[in-house]
């Protein structure tokens, strides 16, 4: 919402400075977006008079002028045909910036003749497109005075942002009222005497609604003004409209725009000679359409409130008028309409047809329903003043909608909610200044909001009014009571785990990324997603249209982009949400990582100490297992199965499970087909942990089990087994460990070998078994006995035999 200082002062008696007004507006909720002083840009531009004009000796179309700037006489070369002795115009001196030609003037020679500045055209000052000659100011203008002032550009323009609850401040008067209530001046009384109608309005007005739709347009008033002369509106009106960015059209149209911005009450004018019979507000019908003022054709329907005559739809009530019946300079009889349109229906119509208009903007927020009659009088006043003519009597159809009912207002609520302690007199004064009627003498009053404040419906609204006018700066900051004692931990178990796993993964050299929660549909499908209930109805692009089923596609494409940029080796992870479905319980938290190129725990890429190996299943398995260990998972309970989903390499991937049902995560090298579809290059390996599936941590207290550090030396024995190629090391290790649970403390795998010396289809698995004697040193016989048990257990479980 824009307005100028002089416009504001029509409604507000104030001596306040521009800064003071701007600061106050921002403080009370009418936030300043911009304060523009057009005079500032023209500060050095002066009114100057041409005292002599001679033909340029060397150019046909140029003249050499001598101009009087009030201070001195300067020679200026000028090409304007209207430049002549006695003309008073706008002089831009050397050093001035001329916006229309984007040039800072310097002293120049034009075809050999010195020129000290220029006489400007309207286009050069960006006032209009006029460039047929230089600006001609009235002869009485004082030479040497400010050009901005002479051009009427000395009026500061305020641009404020209004919140949707304040339709009253979409008119200058509403802004002035707020400023007055905030203590910046006094609201002027601007009574508007009714204009007497000389004859009955010949155009009937009808409200044609079924009972259920009556609220669409509860009141509609109009009158005819005959014999008007519609021409350009006067300078002052044009200037105001231009200052706030509106294009003057003709007096009748300019009046409607002016009143709309002056009072926040939109109105409409029709060329009465183009109307057929009675005018009516009704709901639209399927198949009806009209050409609107914006030149577009709109089809209406039975949810929309239209204005129609007996022949056709003229416009959409509260949204936009029709082109056919609009007022032009040929209009001689004008019908003026003021009505109240229902905010909800107006909003919906505007949304459906995607029409943005100043009228819709106001009606959908709620205009003052009691402005209909006074607004019509004000409009008649302006029309007769600017265009002459003879007004008819007023016709009003319908009734003003009922005002917001009065409500109880306990003044102590202000203290209770805001902490402000204010005298009752101040509360009364502030609210009364806003037009709120207060009755009663004790703490509890009866409050009636004014019709222009549809947002005020209860006591808490009045608290807001008082607080914003007094200023939150006056509210004393009050410490929130602290909980007794030392602050207790506040994170839930899952929250604390996420925090820990995030730091752990970063500590393993992975770099945390945050990628989009949505991705292209085909990518979602590759990773088991793509359900229709997870498709956005209005995505910002097809690239971001489907909720992600996994964090992996986002990480893989991020890795790909890094590789494309020349960063070929590295590791990324993300901890965040993904979706199996649209219900809250279908959202899950994953911690996922991707290693790409040559990447290992100690670093990435090539190095003199040895190149990092290509990202493989083992590297990401280590990440996943380490993360689970950091979350306190008992590693001995972890099962590794071959149940990784299809986006992994079928032979180089696995699942991390707790029992047969609980899936904790998956890991492996990514399937080459998936990488090819995503245009990513191998090597790339990934893991995904499903943090919600971890059993909750047991509350075991803080005491750790006692350390069992035995004095007896552990004994280590190596065994190499020849097994079938598909025998899994995990099975063999478990079998060996189970041979004597009391004595065997650990079993490690130190060699896996196929090749020379190992028969085709077989492999050699070498393990190191550590025996921890407890009571006495083991004898050779005892050690041999355990070894035999190990060999037997392995043979039984895997069919493997000791290598000779």
């Amino acid at each position: 919402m824009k307005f100028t200082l002089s416009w504001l002062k029509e409604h507000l008696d104030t001596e306040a400075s521009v800064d003071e007004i701007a600061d106050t507006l921002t403080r009370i909720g009418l936030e300043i977006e911009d304060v523009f002083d057009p005079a500032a840009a023209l500060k050095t531009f002066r009114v100057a008079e041409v005292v002599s004009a001679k033909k340029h000796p060397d150019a046909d179309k140029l003249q050499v002028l001598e101009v009087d700037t009030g201070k001195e006489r300067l020679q200026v070369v000028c090409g304007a045909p209207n430049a002549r002795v006695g003309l008073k115009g706008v002089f831009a001196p050397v050093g001035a910036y001329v916006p229309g030609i984007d040039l800072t003037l310097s002293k120049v020679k034009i075809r050999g003749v010195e020129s000290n500045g220029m006489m400007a055209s309207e286009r050069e000052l960006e006032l209009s497109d006029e460039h047929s000659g230089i600006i001609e100011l009235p002869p009485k203008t004082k030479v040497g005075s400010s050009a901005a002032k002479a051009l009427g550009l000395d009026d500061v323009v305020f641009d404020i942002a209004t919140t949707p609850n304040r339709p009253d401040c979409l008119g200058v008067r509403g802004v002035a009222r707020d400023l007055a209530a905030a203590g910046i001046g006094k609201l002027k009384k601007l009574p508007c005497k009714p204009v007497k109608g000389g004859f009955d309005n010949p155009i009937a007005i009808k409200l044609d609604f079924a009972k259920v739709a009556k609220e669409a347009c509860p009141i509609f008033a109009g009158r005819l003004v005959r014999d008007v002369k519609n021409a350009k509106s006067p300078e002052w009106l044009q200037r105001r409209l231009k200052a706030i960015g509106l294009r003057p059209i003709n007096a009748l149209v300019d009046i409607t725009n002016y009143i709309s911005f002056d009072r926040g009450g939109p109105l409409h004018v029709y060329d009465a000679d183009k109307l057929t019979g009675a005018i009516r507000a009704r709901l639209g019908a399927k198949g009806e359409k009209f050409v609107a003022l914006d030149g577009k054709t709109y089809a209406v329907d039975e949810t929309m409130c239209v204005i129609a005559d007996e022949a056709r739809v003229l416009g959409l009530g509260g949204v936009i008028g029709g082109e056919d019946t609009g007022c032009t300079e040929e209009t001689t009889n004008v019908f003026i309409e003021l009505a109240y349109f229902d905010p909800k229906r107006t909003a919906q119509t505007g949304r459906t047809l995607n029409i943005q208009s100043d009228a819709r903007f106001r009606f959908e927020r709620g205009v003052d329903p009691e402005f209909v009659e006074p607004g019509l009088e004000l409009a008649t006043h302006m029309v007769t003043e600017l265009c002459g003519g003879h007004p008819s009597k007023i016709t009003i159809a319908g009734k003003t909608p009922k005002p917001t009912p009065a409500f109880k207002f306990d003044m102590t609520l202000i203290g209770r909610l805001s902490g402000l302690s204010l005298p009752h007199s101040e509360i009364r004064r502030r609210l009364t200044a806003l037009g709120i009627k207060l009755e009663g003498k004790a703490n509890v009053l009866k409050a009636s909001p004014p019709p222009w404040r549809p947002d005020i419906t209860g006591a808490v609204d009045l608290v807001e009014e008082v607080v914003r006018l007094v200023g939150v700066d006056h509210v004393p900051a009050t410490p929130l009571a602290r909980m007794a004692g030392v602050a207790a931990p506040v994170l839930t178990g899952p929250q604390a785990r996420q925090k820990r796993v995030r730091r752990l993964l970063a500590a393993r050299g992975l770099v945390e990324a945050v990628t989009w929660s949505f991705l292209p549909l085909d990518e979602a499908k590759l990773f088991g997603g793509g359900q229709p209930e997870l498709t956005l109805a209005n995505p910002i692009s097809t690239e971001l249209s489907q909720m992600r089923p996994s964090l992996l596609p986002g990480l893989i494409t991020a890795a790909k982009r890094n590789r494309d940029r020349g960063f070929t080796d590295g590791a990324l992870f993300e901890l965040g949400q993904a979706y199996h479905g649209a219900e809250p319980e279908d959202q899950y938290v994953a911690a996922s990582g991707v290693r790409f190129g040559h990447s290992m725990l100690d670093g990435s890429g090539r190095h003199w100490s040895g190149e990092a190996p290509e990202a493989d299943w083992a590297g990401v398995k280590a990440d996943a297992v380490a993360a689970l260990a950091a979350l306190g998972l008992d590693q001995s309970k972890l099962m590794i199965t071959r149940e990784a989903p299809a986006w992994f390499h079928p032979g180089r991937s696995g699942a991390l499970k707790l029992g047969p049902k609980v899936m904790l995560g998956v890991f492996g090298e990514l399937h080459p087909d998936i990488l090819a579809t995503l245009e990513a290059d191998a090597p790339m390996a990934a893991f995904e942990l499903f943090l919600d599936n971890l059993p909750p941590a047991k509350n075991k207290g803080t005491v750790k089990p006692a350390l069992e550090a035995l004095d007896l030396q552990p004994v280590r024995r190596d065994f190499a087994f020849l097994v079938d190629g598909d025998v899994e090391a995990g099975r063999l290790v478990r079998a060996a460990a189970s041979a004597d649970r009391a004595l065997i403390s650990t079993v490690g795998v130190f060699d896996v070998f196929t090749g020379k010396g190992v028969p085709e289809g077989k492999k050699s698995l070498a393990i190191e078994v550590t025996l921890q004697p407890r009571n006495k040193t083991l004898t050779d016989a005892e050690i041999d006995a355990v070894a035999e048990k190990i060999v037997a257990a392995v043979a039984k479980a895997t069919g493997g035999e000791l290598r000779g």
Partner: protein
Amino acid sequence: MSAPELDSLRAELLAAIAGASDLGTLEDVRVGVLGKKGRVSALMQKLGSMPPEERRDFGQAVNAVKTAVAEALEAKHQELSRAATAKRLAHETADVTLPVREGPLAEGRIHPVSQVTDEITEIFADMGFSIAEGPDIETDFNNFTALNIPREHPARQDHDTFYFAERPDGTRPLLRTHTSPVQIRTMLKEKPPLRIIAPGRVYRCDSDQTHTPMFHQVEGLVIDEDTHLGHLKWVLQEFCKAFFEVPEVKMRFRASHFPFTEPSMEVDIGYAKVGDEIRIGEGDRWLEILGCGMVHPNVLKAVEFDPKKYQGFAFGVGIDRLAMLKYGMPDLRAFFSGDLRWLKHYGFAPLAVPTLAAGLSH
């Protein structure tokens, strides 16, 4: 053997030791003197066959020679060993200017959004706030209606909501446009007094230099029987001081409008711009950082809290924006690009855990 003979033997042996140029020669000398058939050993063996009266004096004299020679041998051995080591080391020089791998802690990073969320959590935990969570895919009721934003409210237009397809029952799930629905979920589940913050992802159908369709917010909510605007002001001031790690911070509370709070305010923070750097706590420029207000009675009613008994405040602030202000990232879009250059530069070391005791940013 006479005493002069012994003296000359001693001199001869010491000279031989001194003359040994390497450990091998020295060992030969040692064997020739002290070995089983060595010259001093032979003299010692002679002792047994000597008459007792001579044996004592001679024994002492031979022993003295033996001791002196043994000491000289030991000293020479050490000297030659050291020389040999020095010679060996002279050939073992490594190029210690070669770069080493600094290990995973030097490689890994925490994303600024996570780091700043940890910082915010740390501050509010100290003030007794716990962390609440809610899903991204929300109901119209939680995201709008319960927050006093009915269907036709113009504020819905400002929210640029992402919707999913309408369901058979007529409801239409959406992506939450703010973290405020977590307020509703919390209040429907728990009873006052409540102190929560709710950080998380939010979504708006909007994209340009300063807007991304996904970003992060943290919601704050306090509900009890007497918390008022003054408490809200204090909490936000304390938060800003702690978060930006400055002793004083200038704040401006402007009246505003949100359907779910009343009175509502937007809060600006004072800053100075030095070059490209934004300095919070200095200067006289203003930057909007958050919206807040007293929870609207209609919101309390929607969760069946009695507004005559309970009251409190709520606020919402952009986490990404706080991160940009504190750590100086210029472009929001880069947050979600997964660009390793950006992540390594603006990300945080894995062990840089923010704590109040050690300082948030160390």
